């Protein structure tokens, strides 16, 4: 009983960590521009796929991982410069469509370049399962959870204690006011795309040894990360992390206890429920419009 529960919990938190990183990515971009970046999932995919590609060309795991984080960050920068900045004042619908277009382009290009196969990475520290109260935990899971925790703490420090981080926060509260006090809000937007892509890519890399990766792995991961962001309250960083983890855990629990063939549907039922009953998410506040 307990063993089974723990098993589901571990697998839920593992995947949930990747969702959490993706959700943070969504939140970062949403905060600096009110854009919902539907290409976030492709950054996750790029991380995994590029890591695979580089290791296969013999570069060794650490360097491959570094490149597989840096390159998507560059892609994020390009995306921002080419597709988001030119249409700065556009309606939200326009921006959503642009990011959907970008996700298609990225996915299609990877499909053409690397094919439709499924790939894996070697687990970072071996495949020897660890026994915890009757449940088994893969070392890679510990990597996922551990690295995610470290990154989240680092981000918290960045936003709460550094000037750059505070500037980004200020931009998210009121862009115009931030500009008035001299914050380079375009730079903030630029940076947020790079960070968001890097976060997504990292999550993808960490998860690949466990769930494998392919050209279309990004869609579901990204969308579920998005559900996590909405669950936590779109725009709230802590909410994103909690939301992402929660989505992962609920998905695993649902798959384990209710039905595994409907596993993928669970996050989307969740988002409908959130939108019906608590659209501002767990941590989101209420806003009013001035007329």
């Amino acid at each position, binding site marked *: 009983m307990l063993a089974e529960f723990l098993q589901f919990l571990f697998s839920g938190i593992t995947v949930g960590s990747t969702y959490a990183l993706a959700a943070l990515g969504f939140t970062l971009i949403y905060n600096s521009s009110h854009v919902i970046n539907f290409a976030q999932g492709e950054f996750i995919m790029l991380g995994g796929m590029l890591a695979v590609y580089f290791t296969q060309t013999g570069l060794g795991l650490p360097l491959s991982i570094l490149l597989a984080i840096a390159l998507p960050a560059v892609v994020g920068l390009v995306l921002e410069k080419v597709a988001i900045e030119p249409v700065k004042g556009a309606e939200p*619908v326009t921006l*959503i469509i642009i990011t959907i277009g970008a996700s*298609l382009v990225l996915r299609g290009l990877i499909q053409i370049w690397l094919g439709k196969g499924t790939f894996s990475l070697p687990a970072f520290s071996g495949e020897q399962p660890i026994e915890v109260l009757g449940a088994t935990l893969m070392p890679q899971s510990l990597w996922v959870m551990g690295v995610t925790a470290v990154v989240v703490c680092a981000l918290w420090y960045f936003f709460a204690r550094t000037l750059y981080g505070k500037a980004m926060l200020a931009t998210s509260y009121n862009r115009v006011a931030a500009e008035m006090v001299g914050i380079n809000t375009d730079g903030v937007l630029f940076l947020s795309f790079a960070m968001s892509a890097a976060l997504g890519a990292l999550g993808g890399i960490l998860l690949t040894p466990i769930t494998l990766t392919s050209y279309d792995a990004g869609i579901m991961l990204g969308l579920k990360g998005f559900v996590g962001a909405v669950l936590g309250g779109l725009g709230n960083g802590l909410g994103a992390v909690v939301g992402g983890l929660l989505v992962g855990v609920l998905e695993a629990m649902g798959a384990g206890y209710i039905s595994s063939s409907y596993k993928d549907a669970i996050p989307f039922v969740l988002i409908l429920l959130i939108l019906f009953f608590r659209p501002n998410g767990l941590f989101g506040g209420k806003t009013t419009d001035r007329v």
Partner: protein
Amino acid sequence: MSKHAFRGLYVIAAVLLVLPFVLPNSFYVDLVIRMAINAIIVLGLNLLFGFAGQISLGHAGFLGIGAYASAALPTFLGWHPLLAMAAGAAAAGALAALVARPIFRLKGQYLAMATLGLGIIINIVVRNEAAWTGGPDGMPVPAMAFGSFEISGDKHWYWIVAFLLCVSIWASINLIDSPFGRALRALHGSEVASKVVGVQVVRYKVVIFVLSAVFASIMGSITALYVGFVTPTIADFFHSIELVTMVVIGGMGSIYGSVLGAVLLTALPQALATFEGWETVVFGAILMLCMIFLPRGLVPTLAARLGKGA
């Protein structure tokens, strides 16, 4: 919108009348049928998009409901295909109403998220419930028959679909100019203003979403009946995005833009048939380029350049 508006309809009707006699073989007739079906779906989607300013990222789900209703209900329950089509439309409409009401009370692009979720859920259900749907491989669809007269093949469906397209265009033009349509456009222009003149904003948005869902469901049924077979891809995410692309390229809120978008983007996959990855890239590129350079779509931009309204 004035008399000009109907001119386009006459042209389209004339073209549709002549085409079957001019096209070299049934491959092209099939293509035109698919274009017309997509055009009708996009017209419905454009009502939502162009006037309520909201986007549906899961519209293919409603197509799926209609398609599988037309497949499963006659096959397993012996219903007449027409009844099955009506049932599918009613189910799609009810589902749309259920989801839309709480969503439209919120400010912002929440419909996008909700329809995204809904579309994916429908797709998963269709894939899983193999007993009713044939699972990932799909299932055959019994043809529509009245007595001994069976409607099948492009010979019959061409005229039915062509007629439906003309009626849909005609009805859409009328609707836009009517008090209902004016209220919709006002809603898109300024929700606050429309509220103070008495427009029940939430209700109108729900109605328009339900309408577009019903359109989609019926066309899903017709697609299923025409092809004679249905698979889960009719209700998948990429199909929803294809529909959005058609709206976007043709022009949000533009009737003829809807038709143009449908025509162009139904033909495109045929041209890219062997280049699967490229199809994805091209669709994505079109979405991006259109929204960056032609945010109003082809038809409204052209119309503005030429100095008249569309």
